[in-house]
């Protein structure tokens, strides 16, 4: 059959199971948009291309499928960059389709030409520029394959306008992808599994340190089985929230810079550390020499380059977390007894629980808001966050019980992520209640996406923890720069209630603790539009406990007494 490049593209997207794409039209993607007009694929028109990238990312994280975004050449493609870098740092499968000037104009500094392949080179898993219409099918197939397999990541495909417009004879090619330089990882080394099992069976004070890789490889069930079979306490990274139920007696919550004291102390004392799908990030480890100093480290990861990158592993296992854990589980001894180790941890939990103080009049404690959201949803909601204090309080005080329920920019720490990601997550999981836990600074970075949520009647609940500060930076200035609040005071801000109403959304303001629950309940009743709740929170509330940057995770500030 005769098909244009853009029509072949639509065919390929459907074959990959794409049901929704996020994008913004423009000159060089006109042929693509023309083909989209007749396609059953749903297109969500965002208000800024960064929103498209984050929405595709949020969709991917919530669903486990590949997220797709489209932008025109030049500024459109450049606007995707922060979103692509965000997905790359957190290993999110995404295919980004960018228009490009006609192939005859490439390199001539044509209108809206940018070398997007050059720009995204260090922040993608791979990228392509399609050179002829005949290559469209193979390229799209490869792009999805690379994006979703092994350690996932964003793949960009640059599509020159003339190549999309040209018509060719097209016969679908159903052959599988073959790439000489890329093989999908299968199986694990049995010798290493045996060594790991021996270490775990002998351990007196084991800890599981679970990260985003557990969620990616769908291994939360195996983590739970291992933890329960051997009674091993589990701490998760920010990316690993939901990899293990926060409600379990074996849960230590999050570790690291803003982890719980008991998680960090457990790391300090453990004799075997079972690290699964993690990368020993500096926000987790603090000063590396003092991270799990007495432990034999078992490191399971799909990416061989992660093993030994930041710290040496005694028992490295390269492979899918799920496969590795399934191989490991039958070799582990069932251990029903509670030991001294469990007593020690229980004691730490009693002595150093997460806690916070009382608010000033007309203000609310931000932690209380997150706790109330948890209370009303019982861990069944999807929580997206912006970045900063709001993100840390969400991670500390919401007890995630299943994977893909926490959607947050961990590695890159992208402010403005939460709202577009919430839109993507809600489209992926329409039956779930979706909250964006936001700060007043972050929300203003992509507030325009309220327009998108309105247009498609996407009911996400935006909870602004409004302290009129760039709170996390302010906290660092308070602690490490003698309280010199250099440009972190953001008291000049829009009236968020009126702003919501200007878009046609619902706006509420809450500044009394007793009104928090009612407002949230009311917001959860609204099903046809987004809601902004502007919570006036204690201005100088801090995120505690906290490990000062570069220090040992055992040296924590705060959280040991009532602030």
């Amino acid at each position, binding site marked *: 059959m005769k098909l244009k490049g853009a029509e072949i593209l639509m065919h390929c997207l459907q074959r990959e199971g794409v049901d929704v794409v996020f994008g913004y039209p423009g000159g060089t993607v006109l042929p693509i948009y023309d083909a989209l007009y007749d396609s059953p694929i749903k297109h969500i028109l965002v208000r800024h291309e960064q929103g498209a990238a984050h929405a595709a990312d949020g969709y991917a994280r919530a669903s486990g499928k590949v997220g797709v975004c489209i932008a025109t050449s030049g500024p459109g493609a450049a606007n995707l960059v922060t979103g692509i870098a965000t997905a790359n740092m957190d290993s999110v499968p995404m295919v980004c389709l960018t228009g490009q000037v006609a192939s005859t104009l490439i390199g001539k500094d044509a209108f809206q030409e940018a070398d997007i392949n050059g720009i995204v080179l*260090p922040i993608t898993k791979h990228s392509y520029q399609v050179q002829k219409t005949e290559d469209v099918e193979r390229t799209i197939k490869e792009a999805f394959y*690379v994006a979703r397999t092994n350690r996932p990541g964003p793949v960009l495909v640059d599509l020159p306008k003339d190549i999309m417009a040209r018509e060719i004879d097209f016969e679908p090619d159903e052959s599988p992808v073959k790439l*000489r*330089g890329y093989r999908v990882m299968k199986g694990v080394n049995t010798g290493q599994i045996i060594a790991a099992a021996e270490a775990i069976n002998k351990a007196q004070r084991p800890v599981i340190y679970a990260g985003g890789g557990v969620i990616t490889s769908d291994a939360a069930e195996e983590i739970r089985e291992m933890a329960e079979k051997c009674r091993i306490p589990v701490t998760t990274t920010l990316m690993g929230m939901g990899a293990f139920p926060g409600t379990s007696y074996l849960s230590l919550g999050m570790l690291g810079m803003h982890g719980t004291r008991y998680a960090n102390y457990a790391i300090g004392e453990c004799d075997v550390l079972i690290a699964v799908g993690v990368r020993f990030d500096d926000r987790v480890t603090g000063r590396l020499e003092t991270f799990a100093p007495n432990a034999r480290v078992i490191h399971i990861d799909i990416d061989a380059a992660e093993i030994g990158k930041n710290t040496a592993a005694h028992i490295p296992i390269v492979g899918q977390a799920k496969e590795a854990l399934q191989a490991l589980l039958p070799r582990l001894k069932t251990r029903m007894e509670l030991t001294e180790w469990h007593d020690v941890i229980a004691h730490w939990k009693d002595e150093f629980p997460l806690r916070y103080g009382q608010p000033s009049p007309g203000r609310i404690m931000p932690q209380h808001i997150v706790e109330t959201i948890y209370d009303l949803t019982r861990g069944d909601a999807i929580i997206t966050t912006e970045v900063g204090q709001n993100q840390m309080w969400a991670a500390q005080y919401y007890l995630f019980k299943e994977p893909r329920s926490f959607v947050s920019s961990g590695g890159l720490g992208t402010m403005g992520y939460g709202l577009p990601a919430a839109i993507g997550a809600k489209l992926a999981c329409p039956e779930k209640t979706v909250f964006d836990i936001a700060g007043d600074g972050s929300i203003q970075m992509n507030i325009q996406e309220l327009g998108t949520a309105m247009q498609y009647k996407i009911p996400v609940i935006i909870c602004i923890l409004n302290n009129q500060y760039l709170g996390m930076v302010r906290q660092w200035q308070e602690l490490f720069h003698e309280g010199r609040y250099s440009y972190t005071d953001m008291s000049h801000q829009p009236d968020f209630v009126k702003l919501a109403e200007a878009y046609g959304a619902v706006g509420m303001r809450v500044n009394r603790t007793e009104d928090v629950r009612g407002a949230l309940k009311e917001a959860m009743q609204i099903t046809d539009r987004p809601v902004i709740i502007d919570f006036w929170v204690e201005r100088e509330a801090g995120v505690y406990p906290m490990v000062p940057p570069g220090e040992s995770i055992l040296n924590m500030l705060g959280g040991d007494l009532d602030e």
Partner: protein
Amino acid sequence: MNKHTIAITVENRPGVLTRVTTLIRRRGYNIDSLAVGATEDPTVSRMTVVVEGDDAIIEQVTKQLYKLIDVIKVVDLTKEHLVARELILIKVKADHTVRPDIVQIVDIFRARIVDIGRTSLIVEATGDQRKIDALEDAFRPFGILELVRTGKVAMIRGTGEDNRRR
């Protein structure tokens, strides 16, 4: 810090060189020399990269390189039995008074004079890095006007079978 010679087999596609060099730079490693060219298979190119670093750094570079989709194979040649060669062109100051001395050096190094100017000569030589360094040193007193080196290319001796027997 040791010098490592790494052979990287890659897809012969536009942009692959940039991917490899960007990756090495981004991870903070310095490239001493780099030579790229076609191989017996026209769809495959081979890069020979000399990088400075301890074994842990080289292991990390190798693993990161393997993650590039266009990279087919990465081999650290440093510990292998190698034939390693580099080509150098040197334009050396040479009026008639010193030409005999230069010719003598050229003979000793089994190099070749490939151009004769009024006051200069261009000398071409191939060899391993030590020989090329020595040649450069030998000409320095005469005054080197211009110098270019290709960077090292290298190959493991024999076949897999030979190496097992050895």
